[in-house]
């Protein structure tokens, strides 16, 4: 019944000769879903999750929020979120115990942000913990053509820091305890991943079938531990093949149909953008595009790496690099003022994403309402590498399940009640992928 109605709506749209960016037709929507009939999950737009990360913390005196709803007041660091106070939840006092206890001030405290895991100090092994965005990707990610987007602006730095690989400083999304998810920094590649439809890739599939056989064969001929490494290759081949197969299918796996069926932005150029703000904006636009087309429902974007050398000369009145000059500013007042500007710049990126999603109508609600977004850094006071609290805020109503316009303070609640992993359990629950335990938490965040 409902299936027929949906296809008749598509037929109608085709009849109009319009396929994209068509304004939502209220009357048609209500006609398609007669009053009184309960709308099951298949009819609801899905909930999307995005995490926007920035490194090196904030200026604590300016990072605060008070009050509720329209009466909420925010500190200077949060100024760009002022217009979206009612869409936001400010979280104070959450932390990862394993990070705070780690001796490596940076690398022990950043790759574990989304997992709460311990960062291995064994030089012969890379090990942190699977991050919750990748748990989501591996549970509900298969519902979309792309399980998750893992984006960044800066490439992995090629050196050791305090004897640890800078791989740690360059990844917050971990596909397994020992393997980071591939972070994409080229906008054009993200675009192709989202838009490339898998047609015309028949010959790629024939190549992939062949090398899959190669890898299986090779796996039998190498040692057990090498075989495990080989398994990564096999997984990669299989997941490309799955994606190509998905992309070729008509319609969605679930009942809901995204409004946007072809991209409403041009393909970005092949080169890596040289202008940082433009690069970030493109990445955020691509997240919006992915959500709007329902190509993925999970996205993580690192605005910078830990220990970032990103030069903030592009902000007026600011000079120097993020980590060395601006974060570790020697408490010089003029430099602290510049550092605050970088905090505001990062929050402004998040606000941009909020703003764009809020402008997209998905019927009863906006795309923002159908999302839950996390903006966070791994330190509160960046200069002190302070990991016993982290700046975190949420935006979006998770399809109505999350009440926004609130400030939640956990700082005095006792260490076991302020675990970031509890937040992650809550978020996974909101996304429809509830878990019993995650990281060091076995219960969701209270009061959320």
């Amino acid at each position, binding site marked *: 019944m409902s299936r027929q109605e949906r296809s008749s709506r598509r037929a109608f749209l085709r009849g109009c000769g319009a396929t994209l960016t068509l304004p939502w037709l209220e009357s048609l929507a209500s006609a398609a879903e007669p009053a009184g009939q309960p709308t099951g999950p298949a009819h609801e737009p899905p909930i999307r999750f995005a995490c926007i990360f920035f490194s090196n913390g904030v200026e604590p005196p300016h990072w605060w929020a008070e009050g509720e709803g329209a009466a909420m007041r925010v500190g200077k660091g949060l100024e760009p979120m002022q217009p979206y106070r009612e869409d936001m939840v400010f979280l104070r006092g959450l932390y990862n115990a394993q990070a705070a206890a780690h001796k490596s*001030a940076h690398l022990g*405290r950043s790759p574990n942000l989304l997992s709460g895991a311990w960062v291995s100090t*064994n*030089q*012969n092994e890379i090990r942190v913990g699977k991050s919750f965005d990748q748990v989501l990707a591996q549970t509900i990610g298969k519902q979309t053509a792309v399980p998750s987007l893992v984006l960044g602006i800066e490439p*992995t*730095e*090629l*050196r050791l820091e305090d*004897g640890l*690989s*800078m*791989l740690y400083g*360059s990844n917050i999304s971990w*596909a397994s305890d020992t*393997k980071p998810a*591939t*972070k*994409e*920094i*080229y906008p054009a*590649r993200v675009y192709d991943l989202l838009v490339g439809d898998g047609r015309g890739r028949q*010959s*790629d599939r*024939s*190549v992939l079938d*062949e090398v899959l056989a*190669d890898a299986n064969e*090779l796996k*039998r*001929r*190498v*040692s*057990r*531990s*090498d*075989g495990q*490494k*080989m398994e*990564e*290759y096999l997984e*990669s*081949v299989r997941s*490309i093949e799955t*994606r190509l197969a998905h992309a070729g299918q008509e319609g969605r796996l679930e009942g809901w149909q995204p409004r946007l069926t072809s991209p409403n932005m041009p393909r970005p150029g092949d080169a890596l953008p040289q202008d940082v703000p433009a690069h970030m904006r493109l990445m955020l636009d691509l997240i919006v595009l992915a959500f709007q087309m329902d190509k993925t429902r999970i996205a993580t974007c690192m605005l910078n790496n830990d220990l970032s*050398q990103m*030069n903030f*000369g592009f902000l007026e009145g600011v*000079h*120097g690099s993020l980590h*060395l*000059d*601006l974060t570790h500013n*020697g408490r*010089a007042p003029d*430099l602290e003022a510049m550092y605050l500007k970088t905090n505001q710049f990062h929050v402004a990126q998040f606000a941009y994403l909020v703003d764009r999603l809020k402008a997209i109508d998905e019927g009863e609600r906006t795309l923002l309402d159908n999302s839950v977004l996390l903006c966070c850094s791994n330190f509160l006071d960046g*200069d*002190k*590498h*302070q990991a016993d609290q982290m700046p975190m805020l949420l935006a979006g109503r998770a399809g109505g399940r999350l009440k926004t316009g609130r400030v939640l303070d956990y700082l005095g609640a006792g260490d076991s009640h302020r675990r970031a992993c509890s937040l992650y359990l809550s978020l996974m629950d909101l996304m429809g992928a509830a878990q019993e335990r995650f990281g060091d938490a076995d219960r969701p965040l209270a009061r959320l």
Partner: protein
Amino acid sequence: MISLFCWKANPTTAVRRLWSRRPLRQSDGRVLSACACFALAVVWSGTARAAGLGDAAPLVKELCTECHGGMSPEAHLDLERLRGEPEFATQFRTWEKVIERLKDERMPPPDAPQPTAAQREELIEAVSRGLHTYIDENAGDPGEIVLRQLTSAELAYSIEDLTGVDLVDPGDFVSDAVGGAGFTNAGDAQFIHDATLERYLESAKKVAAHAVIGSGPLKFDIDPGKTGRELSSIRRIQEIYRSHGFRTAAGEGGKPFGLDVYPKSLLVAWQFRHRQALGRPDATLDDLARENGLEPRFAAYINSVLTAPTHAFPLSEIVAGWRNLPEPGAASVQAVREDCNELYGRLRYWQHLLASESSDEEEAAVLTDGAVKLTKESSFKATLDWREGADRATIELSVLPVAKAQSNPLVVWHNPRMRFRRDRKWTPYEPLRTVLSGDVVGKLSFGRHPAGAKLETDDFVLGRTEDMVLPFSVPAGATSGQLVVDVMLDVKHGEEGVVRCTVSDGINPGETVAATGTYSVLLADPEGSTYRWLKPGIEEFARALPEVSHREPAPSDRDPIPAPFDGTYNSAERNHFHAKIKYHRDDRFLVDHLLDDATRLRLDQAWVDLLTAFDYHDEFYRVVARKYDLPDDRRGADLDGAWIASLPDEPRLYVERLHSDYARARQALSAAEPGHVDQALEFAERAWRRPLSAAERGRLRGFYSRLRNDRMEHEEALRLLLARILVAPAFLYRAEAPSPSPAAAMLSEWEIANRLSYFLWSSIPDEPLRRTAAAGQLQEPETLASQARRMLRDLRARRFATEFFGQWFGFYRFDKHRGVDGARFPEFTDSLKQSMYDEAISFFSYVVREDRPVDEILFADYTFADAQLTRHYGLPAVESIKPVKIEGTGKLHRGGLLRLGAVLTVTSAPLRTSPVKRGDWVLRRILGTPVPPPPADAGSIAADDVQSDGRTLRARLEAHRRDASCVNCHSRMDPLGFALEEYDPIGRWRERYRDDQSIDNSGVLNDGVEISGVSGLLDYLKTRRAQFHQTFATRLLGYALGRAELASDRPLLDELAGELDRGGKLSDLVVRIASSRQFHFRRGGNPTPEGELPVAGEEP
């Protein structure tokens, strides 16, 4: 020289192998010492042997595990666990720290129960013993080496070496990460995901797109697809033309080449003629040609021309000259060789004379196939030069009958006029009469005809004239002149015949315009008997001895175009030809007389590839169709024979030829297909770096056949096959067969070859290394050593300088460095960055390839700089845009690692220098004794060097380190960094800070040593050589093996460092590592799940 093969190896494999291949010679000390080693060695027994703590275990429990144990051990140090299984191999540093803490009594902490002095002694003793026993028993353990992927750089280098073209930018991949000993080549930090694999697939397809798949063997071109095919064909054709053909200097910018074939062939024919007299009755023409470096086919051809019974004039003159060469008894071969050169001069005279009449004004004057067009009239536009500043110059004129028998022709020189070049502009023309001075004017009798006929006042008439010299005054400031004149053979009043007229400035009398500035024309009356007599001879000469062997494949717009095109300049057909048809093959002489069979084949293949790289045949047909009004909707590529036969004669000629050319091309292309598949398998063998198994060959062929069966074209299927080879795990991973047993196993020859080539070249083994591996000789110490040394001298060792030294010292990918504030340092441009990067890489390439003493890395008195960098550094300027070696730079603050711009820049903050960073860098990278990471709340100092409080960086840093918890490390780091304070954040030497404060470059290390300035730092490092050598050894071994240091590496590392202490060179270290047990073995105890025997590289 380090002795080779001192492993503590399993004699049952290694020794037998060594012995079976090389009989013991008493004189060979190295082999003897190797045996001694084996005899003394503790026999290796497999995986790392566990060593326990023994008696100390209960003490550890008693004293340590209350804190360092349980659910969350203090400092994440779980001695509870380590007590049972000490994991000395990887945890040796932890245990060393335990010993240190026990020794200095910082552990157990004061508030915990304390051991007695005896207990403490016992514990220290037991832990040390355990550690040393472990090391002794496990020395040479190959260690766990995680399966390695090619790094981005290795991938790019491998593809470059495979294809011969630099096709892949390592920047296309962002999947590199550093692990192990601090290098990207360690498997532990390498991961593959679907996104990375997509990138590999993309780049594999990109490389495959560069394959030239034509009628010849598979090769790669810098341009992809059709463009690559077209340009590569052109390059192949040009290469054959240049190396086998010849041409005189014709046309603008034309350079003569290959002309020595004529005099050589004259000499060879003479030698053959007189072979009896020369004492070589059995010599063949071929033999003599080869001895003289001449293509036998050409020698035979010229010989046939020279020995033909009859010739017409002027060829007869040349042949007569050759026949009159002295007999061997009358002159030496050398003298005859000179005679041949002279005769060739005569040949050139005729070629040039006739060539000038063989083409129209717009075209290059070349004599090819006898297209000589003589007329009664012609004209000169002759440029006249003179020495700079001269006030007098000359014009030389001559009128000479071609055949000596002619008596006296008359030539009218009509409207001779001159103009001058002054201030880059031409002056107006003036009659020649007014340019020449009075006495000279008389020589020419202006306006008077010798036969009394009417003549204009500015004209004159010349009869037979040799070298008439006409001086004139150069107008002030004129730099050159031009004489324009029409010449006419006056057959009404004078004798008919063939006449050569020349105009020259007399500066360089010579043969050709391009070479000398002599202009000449031939005049003749086409109706006259002399011309009729001469014409066939000219044509014969032009055919037999042309001055160019071929035309260029793509005619320039001055060259003639072939029939049936309209050759009129700017005509529609001519333009269509240049734009669409583009190429015209006109190399008959070259093919017939100069090329051997193999080269002919290659040339034909290149032409087939060229003309099938675009719709040549269609475009050609289009012109013919338009010209002869044939149906326009057909394609040149598919015309049927019956229809062609029905065409009228003239178009049929062209269409038929087009059709058969096309059919031949198709035939050649499809004939090449099976060869391509074979060549793709050879490609796979090189890409996979080992022989393919029969099964693998079968699978690759099967893949190709399946694609063909699915109706895919050969070209596309072959490209997919190549892409499939390059995205296969066998290419992307450096897989090694596991040990079949718990014991470590020796690697195969191919695996060692791979380890060696990726160690030294970051790329695939080359042909000599492959041959050595295939012959099973790499396990022979001398062969291995000589291969390693050869590879270090090779150009590709530059990659070792880039990858190993770049990553070790932190200037890797400095060309992408972004840590400098562009607003503060606008002079830090991309091109300066590149110059600094080039300096660093050139320096290390030099050290590696020239095998300089290792200590030069620190103390060199030279550096490598280009023009831009010498300006930046204030060194004496060089002009080169490539870095050149500059000696004696020490006094100018340059030379060696510490004074490299790239190093000084990466160790600075964006706005200022960072003595902390630089000091930390010296400790960590050079001395190998890094300080521990700062506490999380260490605080910081300001980003800029000039602050409003007027305090210097040093003052601020000193305030910062006043805290007792900081001073310990900072007193180790800061003095090392301050010694370099006279180098600014972008590596320039400076005397003062920006705010004019003076620079204090001195400091006292925590052990009391005073250091000031870079020279003080270098002096200090001279006392710390041993530490540098230890770091060097550790890094080099880590890089070679792709893993971090193990306790069991200690004996080898000590040996390596000791070798450096004794003045050993890098090559000695590399050879020692390449022959170490770690390098030749793979750890056991981790067999395949199925327990199958490895086959990689073992099949013939």
